[in-house]
């Protein structure tokens, strides 16, 4: 254990800090859940890529910098500390990217990772179906082999970014009549393929942040399948591990929110409830605890370890922490909390953030599912019973 950054790490921190100071948009971007804001965020991804900041941990040949996870954390700390925009390509760079790195062929890495890091292709996820939410193994959408193509029929839903994105990835039933987690394959598809219909869904805040996807004889090359036919569940679990584990929510984002909450509290101190004071101090403590934990996980992975079921603990912790911080802010704001200014993100970030924080305990595997995983796989409690 050694809690000083090396000179190289400090120089790297300085480099990203300076780049952000020069290149950050002058005005906050519109929300990425709406069409105009989406395109602003795509432009920002491309700007990041020009600076070679798309995904610093990836090998240089795919547009990365070949850096380690501690440097990635430093990048994230500076990124969120500077108030930078949300990453519209998060599904790609943090979830699909590491999965392709692990399971893709060289050809697939070349074909998908480079444009992903460059911000040229924005990715949507396509996991859930109307009958397969928390119970993802209930997937029904089929991808039936026809020569060197799969023909996809069915429906996906709650597909983040799919209203505007370029490509999607998800699980499809490639073995007709198979059940549960058998017979599924992990397939990448162009959202503009004939037969794909997108129906944007208005989210709680009114913007079309996700969409339903309808597949009607959609032909996708077999070369777009990651790993073997029927191995989709295993690949998806790895992706979910990345999602719940290290990368989906880096601590910097929450630490930045905690800092803003402290500042908000200072402005409202005279009429704040005593409980708010405690909640604000707790926000700092919990975001720090989350950061320490992430540094441990990163060091563990660098030492050859991996993320297992403990990723569920992470997901429960950050999602409920985020909700609690934003609730505290809403309560501090009082009558001002209800005022909406979604056209100008800076005006009521807390309201938008609170609304978004309500989705955290639901997506990426609901927290109830995470608590079951924690109890059964980490604590070894019995899997019998449904009650």
């Amino acid at each position, binding site marked *: 254990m050694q809690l000083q950054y090396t000179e190289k790490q400090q120089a790297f921190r300085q480099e990203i800090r300076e780049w952000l100071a020069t290149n950050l948009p002058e005005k906050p971007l519109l929300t990425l859940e709406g069409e105009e804001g989406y395109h602003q965020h795509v432009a920002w991804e491309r700007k990041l890529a020009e600076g070679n900041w798309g995904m610093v941990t990836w090998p240089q040949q795919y547009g990365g910098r070949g850096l380690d996870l501690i440097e990635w954390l430093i990048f994230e700390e500076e990124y969120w500390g500077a108030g930078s925009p949300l990453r519209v390509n998060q599904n790609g760079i943090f979830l699909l990217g590491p999965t392709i790195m692990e399971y893709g062929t060289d050809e697939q890495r070349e074909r998908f990772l480079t444009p992903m890091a460059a911000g040229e292709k924005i990715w949507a996820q396509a996991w859930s179906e109307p009958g397969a939410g928390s119970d993802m193994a209930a997937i029904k959408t089929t991808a039936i082999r026809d020569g060197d193509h799969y023909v996809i029929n069915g429906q996906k839903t709650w597909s983040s970014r799919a209203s505007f994105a370029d490509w999607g990835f998800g699980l499809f039933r490639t073995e007709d009549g198979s059940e549960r987690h058998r017979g599924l394959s992990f397939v990448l598809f162009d959202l503009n393929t004939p037969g794909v219909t997108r129906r944007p869904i208005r989210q709680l805040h009114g913007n079309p942040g996700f969409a339903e996807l309808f597949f009607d004889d959609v032909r996708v090359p077999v070369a777009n399948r990651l790993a073997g036919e029927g191995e989709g569940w295993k690949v998806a679990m790895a992706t979910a591990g990345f999602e719940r584990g290290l990368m989906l929510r880096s601590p910097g984002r929450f630490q930045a929110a905690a800092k803003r909450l402290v500042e908000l509290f200072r402005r409202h101190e005279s009429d704040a409830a005593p409980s708010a004071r405690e909640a604000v*101090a707790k926000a700092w403590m919990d975001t720090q605890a989350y950061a320490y934990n992430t540094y441990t996980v990163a060091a563990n992975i660098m030492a050859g370890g991996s993320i297992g079921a403990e990723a569920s603990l992470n997901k429960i912790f950050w999602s409920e922490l985020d909700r609690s911080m934003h609730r505290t802010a809403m309560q501090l704001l009082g009558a001002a909390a209800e005022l909406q200014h979604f056209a100008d993100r800076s005006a009521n970030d807390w309201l938008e953030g609170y609304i978004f924080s309500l989705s955290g305990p639901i997506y990426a595997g609901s927290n109830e599912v995470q608590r079951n995983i924690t109890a059964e796989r980490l604590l*070894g409690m019995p899997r019998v019973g449904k009650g």
Partner: protein
Amino acid sequence: MDFLIASERLELAEAVRNFFSGKHGPDVLRRLDAQDNRDPTIWQSVVEMGLPGLLVPEEHGGLGMGLVDAVLIARECGRACLAEPLVESAFVMVPWLNAQGEQSELSAIATGETRPVPQHKVNGWVADGDGAALDSVDPLRNLSALPDNASDDPHLLNLGALMASAQLVGLAEAMLDQAVEYSKIREQFGQPVGGFQAIKHKLADVAVALEFARPVLWRAAQALEDDPASASLHVSHAKIAASDSAYLSGESAIQVHGAMGYTYEVDLHFWMKRAWALSGAWGSRGFHARRVDDAIIGGDQMIGPQHTFA
């Protein structure tokens, strides 16, 4: 930057854990409770493992290790609900005496001959002291009155609070383990109660609290070792995280045990009572919350993502 506890440090803690789980189980606690609370043979085995000398510098016959190592061992002492005054003499007094430049007693501490105990004004008592006896809720704690000349040194308080936090984490882990084990064997409605989601989710919450208390404890130990201006803040953070986890674990464990948990027969009460005692010791929750508050809301501690390790 490397926020990972080296595996060789964990090996010693694991050896201590194995020793305690073999030789210091609940039967020993019940025997001590029925007799007179302390047993020289237990102290002797602790001495044979070299634990009293863990933090004593090598030139005084100790192992010369650091606070992170001591925190790992103190956690095991909590897990085993050890009654002997190892933590406060070897992991609180030794580094404090050393910091004061008072090294005359250190070699006798390392050999286990003497075991001085801290006397600090933040506590209204001394544990394993010589004064008039006081009754603790914890049947295995020997409390006595605090002398008038007790210290009010903040460094001693920080060391005491850090090591109480470490024991609290171990106590909370042990109570979680006991609850999980009980939930597997107790059957109702035709199945182990641990199969019910209401029970699973309750214990999963304890696992979450502990997962995010442990790194705070490591952080505090390293902070007190490196001694930056923010060390007190990190110790207070650890004390809050550890005592909150311990209360949560105790309350969840008793609930999972049902009426059995409310008896003196079930082992759980030894751990739960130690947790209550140590949660209040070395600065109440309010004391530590105020220190965090003063630094974060009212003070000039650097906060935000760029200052994770400030």
